[in-house]
């Protein structure tokens, strides 16, 4: 793994060296041997420099390739990236800029809807709610007749001077004398 910013710089340096060499040797034709010597020396130094540079760069690159991932990993291990993102990144802004239509186009909406309907058992809900309405109506009628029953019973009991009222308990609970 290399850091992306580094490579273009190395390439630029190598190019510079290649341009310098022909300049010093062929184009500058001077008669002064001293200057020629300096030129050759400069070329030599340049070549050596480029070799060293290449070697060093290759070595450093290889070393970085090895070290950087480990270092970055160990650094990242020591940081709570999620928390950093939550602290520093405006997620709302990112979501606002996201193209929701593209996302929704890739979601199988009909399949999901069918799945939800299957899971919540929609027919059962409809059945229960309509059944509930019917049950309410029936219960209302039953309550009406029940209260009418009690009203009539009360009148009949008072006409017959029956002070205790009636025994309307279920036959299963204590109904020995109720059989008349």
């Amino acid at each position, binding site marked *: 793994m290399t850091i992306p910013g580094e490579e273009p710089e190395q390439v630029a340096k190598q190019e510079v060296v290649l341009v310098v060499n022909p300049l010093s040797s062929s184009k500058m034709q001077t008669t002064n041997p001293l200057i020629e010597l300096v030129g050759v020396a400069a070329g030599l130094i340049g070549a050596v420099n480029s070799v060293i540079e290449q070697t060093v760069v290759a070595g450093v690159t290889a070393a970085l390739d090895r070290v950087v991932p480990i270092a970055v990993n160990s650094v990242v291990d020591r940081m709570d990236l999620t928390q950093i993102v939550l602290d520093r990144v405006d997620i709302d802004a990112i979501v606002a800029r996201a193209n929701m239509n593209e996302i929704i186009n890739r979601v199988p909406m009909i399949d999901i809807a069918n799945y939800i309907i299957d899971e919540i058992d929609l027919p059962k809900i409809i059945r229960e709610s309509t059944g509930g309405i019917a049950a309410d109506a029936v219960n209302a009628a039953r309550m009406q007749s029940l209260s009418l029953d009690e009203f009539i019973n009360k009148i009949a009991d008072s006409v017959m001077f029956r002070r205790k009222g009636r025994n309307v308990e279920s*036959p299963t609970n204590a109904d020995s004398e109720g059989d008349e």
Partner: protein
Amino acid sequence: MTSFEKFRQQLAAGEVRNPAQVVIPEKAKPKQGHRSGIVTRAIAVAIDISVVIIVMLINYGLLWLFLLLVAPIHLFEMPAASWFFLAGFVLLWAYWTAAWALSGRTLGNHLMGIQVVDYKGARLTWPLSALRSILSMVFPIGLLWVVVSPTNRSIQDTILRTSVVHNWSVTLDDPFVRG
């Protein structure tokens, strides 16, 4: 769709709520198991008789259609109305007998939330049910004794030691299910 069998299993396992706890209003819960009064029972009887009358009218229409299509025209004649009256009586008797012996409820009983039980609070036997049915038909005025009776019983109930109790929902506690 849930079958009744499956529903009962689920109810026994506690997977579904008992409908009795859901359906019955709070005010009516203490009244469950109490003997029902005259108004409720009269309405139930009226509903039963209406059902039988409707069935007999349909039968009359079907018979008329059948004879019209099948019988030779010079022999076409509807039976006398008294035959239908008699048939209605027999039908009502059979209907009440079967309903009380099987579930303790006729259609009218079911709508009004009442149930016919014997002196133990259990389902009526077939002979008892048939007897109660015939007594109810030959002496319908006996129902009015409910108003006077100290235990909300009609003449028929008093003779046969039966009761008509409020039971607003069909549950596992029903004599029918238990038996």
